[in-house]
């Protein structure tokens, strides 16, 4: 008998009580109220930006903050007509997805080698790889500009993708190394005995099992790449400008284009939400439950 059936077959007054306590109950304790307050505080800017993006310019610049108004899509329209935002968005999407994909493929293979194959000095290599992440990007921004200029990689997709892969790979390898170490070796040994080649094992056994780790690494890499400002600023100009750089352009010498800026920010957040929402399905607890006792 399921809980549903149990509830509906019980006498009437019991049924009401059961319905009332089904699900989470919110009791107005001090802690709960405090939590709601803090969450509200943090969520407010997000709400305000979304609100602002829908406001006509007159009401944005009003001295007193306005919460009730007639929403308009004027700001969004201006983004796409005056600021070529469609292309900017496309640039960001392509660069982020390609970087993410390349990073994942390379990181999984590299981390697998580190985690499984008896590489001498493996721990030292792993730590050295991680240390690459400690480098502040700004220290190498100008050298990269000079090199990229010579290589004709300025203002191209490839130019930025190479940079992002280079900067994200160390941490991705470090993360995947940890996730792969959690995959029971016995699974691969069983696969070896079943006749699979090493590549088949990686493709058909290891990757599906470590998918939560891959999803986490992918989310991390995507978010970093999507939001990256400094290198994008340095290495792009017109053709492959990304969203963060464009948003900064709305802060102009004499005025700040709040309406368009808010609209751009809202649009920037949406792909991240989608990616995280899609990938979080794969971060299912206990993926390896049932494989090994």
């Amino acid at each position, binding site marked *: 008998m399921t809980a549903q059936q149990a509830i509906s077959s019980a006498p009437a007054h019991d049924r009401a009580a059961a319905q009332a306590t089904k699900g989470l109950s919110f009791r107005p304790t001090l802690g709960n109220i405090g939590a709601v307050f803090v969450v509200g505080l943090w969520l407010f800017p997000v709400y305000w930006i979304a609100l602002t993006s829908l406001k006509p310019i007159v009401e944005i610049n009003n001295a007193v903050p306005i919460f009730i108004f007639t929403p308009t899509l004027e700001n969004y329209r201006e983004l796409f007509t005056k600021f070529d935002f469609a292309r900017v968005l496309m640039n960001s999407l392509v660069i982020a997805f390609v970087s993410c994909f390349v990073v994942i493929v390379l990181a999984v293979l590299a981390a697998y080698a580190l985690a499984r194959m008896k590489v001498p000095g493996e721990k030292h290599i792993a730590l050295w790889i991680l240390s690459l992440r400690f480098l502040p990007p700004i220290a190498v921004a100008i050298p990269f500009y000079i090199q990229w200029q010579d290589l004709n990689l300025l203002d191209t997709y490839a130019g930025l993708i190479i940079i992002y892969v280079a900067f994200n790979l160390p941490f991705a390898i470090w993360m995947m190394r940890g996730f792969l170490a959690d995959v*029971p070796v016995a699974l691969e040994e069983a696969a*070896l*005995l079943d*006749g699979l080649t090493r590549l088949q094992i990686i493709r058909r056994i290891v990757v599906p099992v470590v998918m939560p780790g891959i999803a986490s690494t992918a989310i991390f890499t995507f978010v970093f790449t999507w939001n990256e400002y400094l290198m994008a600023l340095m290495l792009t100009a017109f053709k492959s400008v990304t969203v963060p750089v464009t948003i900064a352009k709305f802060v102009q010498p004499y005025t700040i284009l709040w309406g368009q800026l808010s609209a751009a920010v809202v649009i920037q957040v949406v792909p991240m939400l989608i990616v995280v929402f899609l990938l979080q399905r794969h971060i299912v607890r206990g993926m390896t439950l049932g*494989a*090994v006792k």
Partner: protein
Amino acid sequence: MTLRLQNVQKAYPSGFMAVKGVDLDVEDGEFFTLLGPSGCGKTTTLRMIAGLEAPTAGKIFIGGNDFTDTHPRDRDVAMVFQSYALYPHMTVRENLGLNLEIKHVASAEIVARIQNIARMLDIGALLDKKPGELSGGQRQRVALGRALIRRPNIFLMDEPLSNLDLKLRERTRTELKKLHETLKVTTIYVTHDQAEALVLSNRIGIMDSGDLIQVGTPQEIYDRPKSVFVARFVGTPSINLVNVVVQNLNGRLAIRLTGDEKPLDSVLLPASEEVFRKLGQSGLELILGVRPEAIGVLTGLHPDAAPAEIDLVEPMGSVNNIVLRFTNGVGSTADGEPLIGVVTSNESHERGQKVWIRVRPERLVLFDKATGHTVTVLSKERWEEL
């Protein structure tokens, strides 16, 4: 398929020798168990047979061919892991069929074999479930199915029953035995559970600290252990080890408990010339190994027998384990442990009760005090060499 291990060794870079030169011949269709305590090298040996680890010395022959350097993929050896190692993201059906799919077996054949295995192991209802949805016993059967479906030359099992509760373990043990009787695949089984080894095996190989100490049928291992270690490892409750002094009394072996002047009259039995010669070498202070079922616990008055006091009575259902200590300065155990005797539970005994111990001439063994090796074994009322 026969299996031969020739001086197989496994040394680690640190210098530690997990396996110290094992020689083994397993016959076709035989169920051979490697039995020993944790860390004795039995799992390492099994993994070398599978090819998951490479021996640092020695050779492995399967069916007469040298497979020492062959990849595990090409050995046609199937293994059931202690942790089952089922692929968690695949259904039971896919788990079972993966190997056949990789080897490009026709799909009709794969379906047929899966049906067959499902029937044999009663897992038909589970075929479309994932390992995470199964119980321990069900997973164990799927792991077995995955190995069986390949019809391998050699079947390897690494403590497959250790994760199951007792009742399930006993049932699965019986099923495994029946399965082996039906299929007659050469099987190498690794366990530290001596009961499993005794029940399942055609022959047992006892290992300790990397050495293969004794190989024999379960009955041989039980009746004629080569050393104290083997005698103590097999048999439950453990064998009793009693300090004794022996003497040649007109061609018979007289055995005296410490502190006693006269020899045990229940065990005054002939011995061969070779035995006496060996005794001459190893000296006269020995250790007598007496199985608990060979200890007679007598109430009433038996001044000829050795006096003892009951420390504890352990009821076991149909029998009681009686834990005893020698008293009155007569008799001592080799390791200071109490004696254990087994009586039927129809008799009743109490803690603190004063009783008399008689040693029955069944399966007695005399061990060298210094080395722990067996000097002579009692067989059919006569002391013999091993």
